[in-house]
């Protein structure tokens, strides 16, 4: 399947736009206080990821990437956010996310991380000749931002969201740098994320039964004195 030249130019620009959106959503998550909005943001990020994958599939003509895009759309943009949504209602978690560090500082730290990620990715980007060139830095920055979100939040659910956002960033890095991992690896990673999700879901219920709260600071008592 051949793609005409001007579609390729348009496509590359569009991909850059999507990457920027991914990063932007990452920042939005970092700044967001409400849990419900956080889950919506996660769904949007999954959607952007699916779109990006589909675009790369269109540009390079790899049929496997279409499956990957479909899978991303189904799992990350629809299913997991829906389940999280239900979980939130069933657990009756309300109110704001309490951050360990205040939001402006977190955002500043995020900017530092993005710069770090770009400086790391610079030699890799210089080597790749694919159309996705320059996207590695953005993906890496998205991963690091999600990690930062996991660290700075107190509620267990926001950590799950951070974990899933990290997974999104990783997938984006894979599609952009290597034009998609082999399907089997992709399925494996997706399964890993799903299992982690299930375990954490069970963990939520256990935690609520024990502490009547989702605040992680209750876990501090479980340690060796």
């Amino acid at each position, binding site marked *: 399947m051949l793609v005409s030249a001007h579609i390729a130019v348009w496509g590359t620009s569009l991909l850059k736009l999507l990457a920027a959106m991914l990063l932007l959503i990452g920042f939005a998550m970092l700044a967001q206080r409400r849990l419900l909005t956080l889950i919506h943001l996660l769904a949007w990020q999954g959607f952007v990821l699916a779109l990006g994958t589909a675009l790369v599939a269109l540009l390079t003509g790899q049929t496997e990437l279409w499956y990957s895009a479909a899978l991303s759309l189904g799992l990350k943009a629809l299913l997991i956010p829906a389940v999280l949504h239900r979980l939130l209602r069933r657990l009756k978690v309300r109110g704001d996310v309490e951050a360990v560090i205040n939001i402006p500082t977190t955002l500043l730290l995020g900017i530092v991380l993005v710069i770090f990620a770009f400086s790391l990715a610079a030699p890799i980007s210089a080597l790749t000749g694919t159309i996705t060139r320059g996207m590695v830095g953005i993906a890496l920055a998205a991963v690091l931002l999600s*990690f930062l979100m996991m660290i700075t939040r107190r509620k267990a659910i926001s*950590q799950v969201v951070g974990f899933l956002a990290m997974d999104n960033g990783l997938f984006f890095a894979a599609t952009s740098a290597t034009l998609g991992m082999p399907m089997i690896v992709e399925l494996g990673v997706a399964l890993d994320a799903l299992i982690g999700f299930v375990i954490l879901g069970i963990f939520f219920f256990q935690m609520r039964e024990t502490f009547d709260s989702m605040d992680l600071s209750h*876990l501090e*008592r*479980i*340690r060796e004195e």
Partner: protein
Amino acid sequence: MTAVLPLDLAMAALLSWLGLGLLGFALGGYQTLACRAVFPLSTMGGLLLAAAGLWASTATPDVLQISGPFPVLPWSFRLDPLSGFFLILLGLLAAAVSVFATGYFRPLPAAALRRLFLQYQGFLLGMGLVLLADNAYTFLVAWEIMAIASYFLVVTEHEEEGSRRAGFLYLLIAHLGALAILLGFAVLAGVQILQGGSFAAMMQAQLSPFWASAAFLLTFFGFGAKAGLLPLHIWLPEAHPAAPAPVSALMSGAMLQTAFYGMLRVDFLFLPQAAEWWGPFVLLVGLASALFAVLFAAAQTDMKRLLAYSSMENMGLIMVAMGLALIFRAHGLNALAALALIAALYHALNHAFFKSLLFLGSGSVLHAAGTVAMDRLGGLIQRMPQTAFFMLVGVLAIAGLPPLNGFVSEWLLLQAFLLAPALPQSTLSAVLPLAASGVVLSAALAAYAMVKFYGISFLGQPRAHLPVHETGRWERSAMGLLAMACVALGLFPGVLIGLLDPVIREMVGQGLGQQGWLWLTPVSAQRASYSPVMFLFGIALALGVAFVLVWWRFGRPLRRAGVWACGFPLRTARMQDSPLGFVEPLLRIFRPVFQLRREALSTAAPRLGLQLGEPVTAYLYRPLAATAAWLSAQMVRLQQGRITVYLLYSFLTLLLLLALLR
């Protein structure tokens, strides 16, 4: 049909031991039958093994390879004269100790006896396999069989806390040593270690001086841990007394010598290009161990602990002889190296016999009196005269008195020392006589310790009312056999030295030549020679003449008078020397070494207690343990209990690694 070879014979003996262990496990319910069937048959196995070893000293070495569970790691065995000599030692010792065990272990309950059979025979098997192994893989597996079997034997009385502690300490040091040996073999064999590290490959290895020294140090550390050299000896005085007497005898007599065997094989066969400092280093460690151990041996109040420290002293002397041999060999004086090696090997065999005799004797005392604490014993010679006689032979032998065997090896060692001026290096030849005086000091102190050992427990009056009785026939015959071996080795040293000739030739390429059975002349007849038979004859003649003269002059008519009681009208057992009182001068002179602590045991009756500290534990192991505990306490701070902090750890690690990878 192929001809039977020495190696086949040795393997048959080892397999018989394995079978006997299983048989004993099966028969354990019938204690008397099991003991009387398994242990005497085990004696036969020991004799068979000794015969194989004897045969190997004249036969050409042969090799046996059995494919193991991993195709690239074969079980590999070889029997050469060096292995043969140690097989003789192990076989004869196992034979005698098994005779003793027949009677000694019979009172055990059935369950304990079942376990004991497996462990005891497994221990013997492990030692035999160590001596026959021909690659690093086989050697280390056998070494671990030996260590684990002996660990279980040490904790035979596992109900007692002290026993378990001793076992743990032993296992810990044994594993440290095994690790060092493994690393040493890896250095020696290089890539070959992945194919099992055959000893033949190690002999051909060309190592740079640095790596040769590394291999030497690692193996010396590893084998030294087993041999109980300073500062790795701390398990020895705990484990030997905790084990049952026959096991202590085997551990002290044979297991320590497997470490010596390992050192000989590595240092003389695998590393022919020795650095000059190896010899003085080994000699110094040996001498320090010997002096340290003999001081502590003299100060002990427990018979078996005293013997354990004395074992360490004897290993120290053997190391001194080996160090001397290394020095001579490094300077190309192979004939003198041969003399020092003969002294070492001779002493190893001697030590196996007299130390196991003494351990078995103290086991008899333990069974008869229920204790081996010397401050409760005394006057045993009246209640157990035969044991006392055999013990006397052992004590005289270990004290190095002619015409018994201990004298021969110490004499040979000192002869080797006296030839040190032949060394081309003047510093060494000037310092070596000092080391020789250290050897003499430790020999003299050993005699002192033995006087205490025998005098306090067998002579004088009983210090406590204990129902003492003579031991059984099996026990006495075993001790008698060992005592006879001590006398024979003392009277006919030429025979053994002739036997050692091929072993020495294998290691330094030169022997002492055949000795006559009567006169022992290691260097030349002009220089020094010794004939134990003539000596015995002379002593007997002098004693006889003196006795006849005294009897003739004062004996007739018999004069009867009241006994002079040294001015004391009343004598009680408490007026005798106590075990600690006997060594009081020594304690005073070497006060800093002993770390004495006095304490009043009770205020009502004036009784003082003395506590001996172990300086190595206090100054080396305690600080080490404290440092480790401190570091662990610091590590606990990392554990915060907050998930976000743990995530932060992994986040920072990730960032650091990414930054490093750029």
